């Protein structure tokens, strides 16, 4: 374990440092990604005023506001993409270098993603989270979140992060087959936005569709931690959800390893 930390920690630190170097651009990106949160915020407000029911999809208007902004906080922790690194390495051929080094390529990528995650968590997310919590208690009149909920939320988010990164690694393998990963990433983003509950809570889907989602890893990425945070999953349900997340981490870890083995067998790198 110590040896692992010693090998992979530098990747994490490196990613952190790199993020620090481009602060200006980064703040603008925060602004851009907050745009969509505000669009959803206004849209949901209009939707609730147009509805004659107080709750839609099991959420009240106040809870929906919290949901929308927690989506932002959670996705900035969870969605730390590595498939673009994979595609860059494959297209440039530097992946060959990674194959001859005595390290696990996937672990190094995950360590790097962890660095990005920590930075994004510390810089915008915590501030937005605290702001949201204050707004929630003072303006929306909801009860403050409990310490247990925060702990469970963080635990669940870290698992979400692992699920996302491991899935994204499998997805990045596409780069071995096409060089134009931009379009694929766009499609991935759109699909994930939907299946993870970023765009709309999973509870809005017809129940048959929800049944199907139960067997996919996606709702574990964003929806589960937020439901825990909102106090919709408590006690045994919360335990079961966390267990399901853990199961997905294991499954995707094994699957990613297998795919990687098969793909690298047919890899051809010219020059170097």
């Amino acid at each position, binding site marked *: 374990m110590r040896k692992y930390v010693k090998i992979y920690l530098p990747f994490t630190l490196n990613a952190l440092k790199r993020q620090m170097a481009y602060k*200006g*651009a980064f703040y*603008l*990106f925060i*602004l*851009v990604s907050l*745009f*969509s949160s*505000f*669009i959803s915020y*206004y*849209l949901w*407000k*209009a*939707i609730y*005023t*147009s*509805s004659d*029911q107080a709750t*839609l*999809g099991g959420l009240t208007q106040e809870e929906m506001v919290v949901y929308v902004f927690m989506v932002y906080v959670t996705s900035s922790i969870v969605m730390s993409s590595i498939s673009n690194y994979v595609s860059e390495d494959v297209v440039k051929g530097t992946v060959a270098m990674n194959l001859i080094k005595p390290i696990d390529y996937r672990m190094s990528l995950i360590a790097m993603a962890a660095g990005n995650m920590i930075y994004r968590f510390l810089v915008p997310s915590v501030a937005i989270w605290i702001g949201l919590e204050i707004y929630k208690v003072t303006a929306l009149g909801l009860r403050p979140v409990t310490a247990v909920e925060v702990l469970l939320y963080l635990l669940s988010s870290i698992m979400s992060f692992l699920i996302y990164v491991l899935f994204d690694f499998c997805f990045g393998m596409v780069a071995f087959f*096409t*060089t*134009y990963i*931009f*379009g*694929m*990433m*766009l*499609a991935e*983003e*759109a*699909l994930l*936005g*939907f299946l993870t509950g970023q*765009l*709309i809570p999973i509870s*809005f*889907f017809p129940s048959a569709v929800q049944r199907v989602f139960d067997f996919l890893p996606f709702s574990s990425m964003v929806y589960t931690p937020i439901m825990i945070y909102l106090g919709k999953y408590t006690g045994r349900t919360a335990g079961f959800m966390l267990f399901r997340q853990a199961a997905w981490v294991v499954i995707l870890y094994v699957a990613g390893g297998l795919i990687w083995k098969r793909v690298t067998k047919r890899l051809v790198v010219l020059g170097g």
Partner: protein
Amino acid sequence: MNQCKRYLRLYKIMIAQFLKTIMQSKVDFLIGLFGFFFTQIMGIVFLYLVFQQIPNLQGWTFEQLIFIYGFAQLPRGIDHLFTDNIWLVGWRMVINGDFDRYMLRPMNIFFQVIAEKLQPDALGELLTGVILVAGSLAKGIVIVDILHVVLFFVSLVAGAVIYTSIKLFFASLAFWMKCSGPFLQTAYEMADFAKYPTEIYAKGVRFLITWVIPFAFVAYLPASFFLKNDVSAGMIGIECVIAVVFWCIAYAVFHRGTHVYESAGN
């Protein structure tokens, strides 16, 4: 007139060159098209799910919102198809000195920038737009008479010009700040606000997207003219004025920018 002919001929030659480069990777083309198409479809599914819960959104029906959504894709797609190269000016051409080559040729510089590339990904957006608008026509919720049909096409062109102008303006800032990509992206993404009726937003936001970065005029406002009888044709008139004004400002900034451009020497 001769000038015009010359540029048309040049455009044909340059685009032919570009088409040859994409022919070598047909799969990439399909993937890009699929990516953009898919992103748009998800937006529709979202609206569909929401409308399972409510009868209308502040007076707008599901069908009307679909039309606004689809209509918004058309000017966006047109601009995306023809002027995608502007992004590269903002992101990297100025900072790494690639812009040199435009300065050296005896042709209009802006013309060269846009003639260098067509973005086939845009067909994903255009396809969504055409399908949704055609669907709305079939449902009969859109007003169809000579005036509306003519103004429909005028509005598409004006909308595309507004898009191009906003992109060109923010990309041109790169001549002074070397890389203006993040600003360009920020401005461009504001277009997402205009996919829905602007009445749902707070006053400040509404003002911003109507008059400062006027994306409301490429989507929601003209679309409401085609949907509702009580909106006057003046709406399209204002759209055209805005398109012309923004184009003049953006082109002036671009033109000044090319004078202060200094190459990244080595």
